[in-house]
């Protein structure tokens, strides 16, 4: 009996390689066990390997198809995440290679006066803007949820921070004439489902966020074209909001006078009402019990050391990153006594309110065990949470880390 597995492994692979124009060697992965954070589902360790997608360095492979790869902890020692180490996240497995020469974005919807098509050249002729912003998957750290919840079992690395360059979404909408009745703007990408009954991945944002000056259609990432796996030739960038809205390979933008429907708006990507200290609301999509996820919660990550690392007694430089939903980090507090007393870390370069904010703290490690607990605070006064705010999809995990170092 020939199963689909065989088809995928032989005929499918050959055809795919032939169509891609790439040699088979290009796909040989550097498969090695990944260094996983404690607390992830046990089964993950049997399938998570370090593997390189074309054009990428080896990342932690969680799933091959659709491809979900997270960045190892060491990636986050710089405030800008290199393109070839930036995480990869797809919902649907049909991912075409998009040709920039023939690429077009169809701008329409019932909230638009006159639909237009925007080519890659058209985009490049428009006034440019740049924003340094964190792109973080809604489900980053899902794998650390207690109890565990189903989904892609991300550790800490489904995020990255890049300098995005492109054009304001508002400028593109204005070209087509944005009607005042518009309540949401939706996006669709070139990627699609493997079977036609799977809902296509379509996402919307409130019109006020769409016309925000920071919301852009990006065609450059850290001074380079977007990597294929991060949305070439152009993607939506919604600074402050989680990655679900940052549509890759965007080919359709629709201004809507009615709420966007579909699986990916509801029930997917929802959080229970009232559980998280968020300011940005998505009122046209709210119901009695849930609301779409919106801005990122304030968070931080220790990047200099892993939990359980060996250090030498004496001064140990602890460092990491902090970020939030775009209000800006005001301070990062460190405790070496399990949260009884706190001291301010030194903040590093400010690349803007949407960016990773580096921080460092000098610990004096005694012989034996030392602990380091970190809490980032933003300019609204919001801080991380000491206990997980459990929710069924495992979103918004900003539990303060408390790692142990051994000298």
């Amino acid at each position, binding site marked *: 009996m020939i199963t689909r597995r065989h088809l995928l*492994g032989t005929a499918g692979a050959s055809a795919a390689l032939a169509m891609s124009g790439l040699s*088979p060697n290009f796909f040989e992965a550097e498969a090695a066990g990944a260094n996983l954070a404690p607390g992830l589902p046990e089964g993950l360790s049997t399938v998570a390997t370090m593997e390189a997608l074309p054009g990428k360095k080896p990342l932690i492979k969680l799933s*091959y198809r659709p491809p979900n790869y997270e960045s190892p902890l060491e990636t986050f020692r710089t405030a800008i995440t290199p393109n070839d180490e930036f995480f990869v996240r797809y919902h649907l497995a*049909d*991912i075409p290679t998009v040709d920039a020469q023939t690429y077009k974005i169809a701008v329409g919807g019932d909230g638009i006066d006159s639909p237009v098509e925007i080519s890659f050249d058209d985009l490049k002729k428009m006034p440019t803007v740049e924003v340094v912003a964190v792109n973080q998957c809604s489900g980053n750290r899902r794998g650390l949820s207690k109890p565990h919840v189903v989904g892609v079992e991300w550790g800490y690395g489904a995020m990255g921070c890049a300098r995005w360059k492109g054009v304001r979404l508002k400028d593109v909408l204005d070209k087509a004439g944005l009607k005042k009745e518009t309540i949401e703007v939706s996006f669709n990408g070139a990627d699609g489902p493997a079977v036609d009954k799977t*809902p296509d991945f379509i996402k919307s944002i409130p019109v006020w966020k769409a016309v925000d000056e920071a919301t852009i259609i990006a065609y450059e990432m850290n001074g380079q074209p977007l990597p294929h796996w991060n949305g070439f030739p152009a993607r939506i960038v919604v600074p402050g909001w989680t990655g679900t809205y940052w549509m890759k390979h965007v080919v359709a933008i629709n201004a809507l006078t009615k709420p966007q429907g579909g699986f990916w708006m509801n029930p997917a990507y929802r959080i229970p009402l009232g559980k998280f200290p968020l300011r940005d609301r998505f009122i046209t999509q709210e119901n009695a019990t849930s609301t779409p996820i919106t801005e990122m919660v304030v968070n931080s990550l220790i990047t200099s050391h892993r939990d359980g690392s060996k250090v030498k007694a004496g001064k140990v430089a602890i460092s990491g990153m902090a970020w939030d939903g775009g209000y800006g980090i005001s301070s990062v507090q460190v405790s070496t006594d399990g949260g009884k007393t706190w001291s301010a870390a030194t903040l590093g370069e400010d690349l803007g309110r949407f960016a990773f904010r580096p921080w460092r703290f000098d610990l004096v490690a005694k012989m034996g065990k030392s602990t380091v607990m970190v809490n980032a605070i933003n300019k609204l006064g919001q801080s991380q949470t000491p206990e997980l705010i459990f929710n069924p999809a495992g979103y918004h995990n900003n539990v303060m880390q408390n790692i142990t170092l051994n000298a």
Partner: protein
Amino acid sequence: MRVLPIAAIAALVALPAVADEQAIPMKKAPNLDKVEANCQACHSLDYIPMNSPFPNAALWDAEVTKMIKAYGAPIDDADAKAIAEYLKSNYGS
């Protein structure tokens, strides 16, 4: 955005994945053939061990139902039952 016949999809999906997917270590047990024949039409099988062993029987049943009802997987009742049995027996809590 794109919707293609399934034969074409087999050739197009996630190019680098195809060669490596065969190396995913799945537990050899009854009904693995049904899992292979159905589940990997849409996704690689690493999703299963990744989400284990925490799901109880009800959760694995709900996952199979979600694949059919929410994601439109064309899986008949007999295969759905066999798949759920495999998941519960090998990747459940």
